[in-house]
């Protein structure tokens, strides 16, 4: 409860400050949070009772976007972790693929739209490709790093007991790398939201991102901000879910009792 208050007090404080600032500035581009809330309500929560008050827009734009974003992120997670562990544990593979991957990492997804158009059909497939191509890298890089940093003694121990490859990967490398992998997963989860918007720049007729851009172009700034808030909300929600998974997966980590912050004079 205490933590809850602690967490949301800062948030609420910032919202209040924002409200005051926007009220003072009175700028079309920066509507007041209350206006945004009204717009959000009109957009998404003014639907009929049988749909739990959700509007048409939610079913037409929000849910498909979420599905694409989670799908893309999941695909990227699987590819990233698998490839990352493989590359992290095999220096030869890393030498072969390293430069190419760095090269690909530096390519802005928008320039690849024409190429994606050739390889995928526009719409869901292309959007998934864009999201995967964008969010893969934090997972991949962190997995490589995690897989590489398995402690030497643990490597030796597994070698000595002739732990078979699958067990070595699943039972040693993955757990050892998991804190780093989770860091990558968390960075990329919110990146997936960003890329969801980017992916809806081309070849779409629905989605949170396309709605957001449309609102922006039509100077419906409260609607646009409502979209941004929705993204923030989704980001927060997904992140919370991921964190609870993480807490379970990393339960073995020594308890916080002895981390830097707590080893401190209470005097």
């Amino acid at each position, binding site marked *: 409860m205490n933590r809850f208050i602690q967490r949301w007090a800062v948030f609420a404080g910032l919202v209040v400050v924002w409200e005051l600032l926007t009220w003072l500035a009175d*700028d*079309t*581009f920066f509507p007041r949070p209350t206006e945004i809330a009204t717009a959000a309500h009109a957009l998404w929560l003014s639907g009929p009772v049988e749909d739990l008050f959700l509007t048409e827009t939610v079913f037409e734009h929000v849910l498909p976007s979420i599905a694409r974003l989670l799908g893309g992120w999941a695909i990227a997670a699987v590819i990233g972790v698998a490839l990352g562990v493989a590359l992290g544990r095999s220096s030869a593979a890393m030498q072969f693929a390293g430069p190419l991957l760095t090269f690909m990492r530096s390519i802005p997804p928008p320039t690849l*739209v*024409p190429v994606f*158009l*050739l390889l995928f*059909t*526009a*719409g869901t497939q292309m959007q998934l490709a864009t999201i995967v191509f964008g969010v893969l890298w934090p997972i991949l890089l962190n997995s490589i790093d995690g897989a590489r940093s398995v402690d030497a003694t643990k490597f030796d121990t597994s070698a000595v007991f002739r732990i078979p490859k699958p067990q070595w990967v699943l039972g040693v490398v993955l757990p050892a790398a998991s804190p780093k992998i989770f860091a990558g997963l968390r960075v990329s989860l919110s990146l997936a939201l960003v890329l969801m918007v980017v992916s809806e*720049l*081309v*070849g*779409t*007729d629905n989605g949170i991102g*396309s709605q957001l851009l*449309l609102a*922006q*172009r*039509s*100077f*419906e*700034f409260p609607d646009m901000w409502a979209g941004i808030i929705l993204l923030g909300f989704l980001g927060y929600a997904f992140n919370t879910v991921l964190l609870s998974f993480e807490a379970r997966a990393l339960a073995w980590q020594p308890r916080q009792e002895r981390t830097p912050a707590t080893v401190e004079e209470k005097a």
Partner: protein
Amino acid sequence: GLLGGSDEQQPAESAGSGKVEKAKIKLGLLPILDVASVHIAIKKGYFQEEGLEIEPIKIQGGAAAIPGLIKGDLDISFGNWVSFMLAESKQGAKDVGGLKLINDGYQTKPDMFLILAKADSPVKSPKDFEGKTIAINTFQNIAELTAKATLEAADVDLTKVNFKEFPFPDMEAAVQNGTVDAAFMVEPFISRAQRTSGQITVLDAASGPTDGIPIGGYATTGKFADENPKTVAAFQRAMAKGQRDAADRPTVEPLLVEYAGVDKETASLVHFGEFPTSLDATRLQRVAELMRTYGLLKEEFDVKPMLVSSSGS
């Protein structure tokens, strides 16, 4: 500097500097055909004659134009009428005295807005669009408005037509690989799609109800217009000459190759639109009407207060 930012330097004292309040104009331009007249005017020294120095700032898409004007990073900018009117109707620029339209820029002629399909497409006539998908560059803009208006005129049920957003450069490919059934294109993409992929015209979206519809022009903020009336007037005079010269194809064609990066072959094929020389409220009101019809504007909108007509030319 090396970063490519604008170098803030005082404009060189030019001949007519005594007359205008601000000699150096930061002008937002899109890399498209529509602004050929500006390049002509610069080349032929029309601005210099008026004591103006133009610093062209390349912007991509309309997204940057209005915020750029509001922030003051652009003094004047090219943009499409729909965006300007939408912004004004939503009071987007109220802090800087609203948006003011100072010059007409570009206007359709037949064969300029074409909806193209693959050569072997089953879509042969507008009626065939029902149940099909058309690529369009941006929703809720001039393309969608004219497409809808002409489709309706051809008796098409709009609720059965899908639109999807694609940037112009990607449309040819999208049509070619069947991602969409047809695409709403402009020059030089039309010429290229016809030439390289043999795509065929299904509908001219700038005909009938939308024949000669204004596309875009030059705007500034109310603040700038109030503070620099002479500058604005000088700009209008120079542009009028540019617009006039732009009607002359041999003058424009080589410029395309130069500033828009269009290859010579395509340049020789493109269909140009009209470069109107005067700003006419009645003509622009047509755009507002279209916007009203298709729900972009919620209420009546009068464009007249937005205009700053050329005083003495």
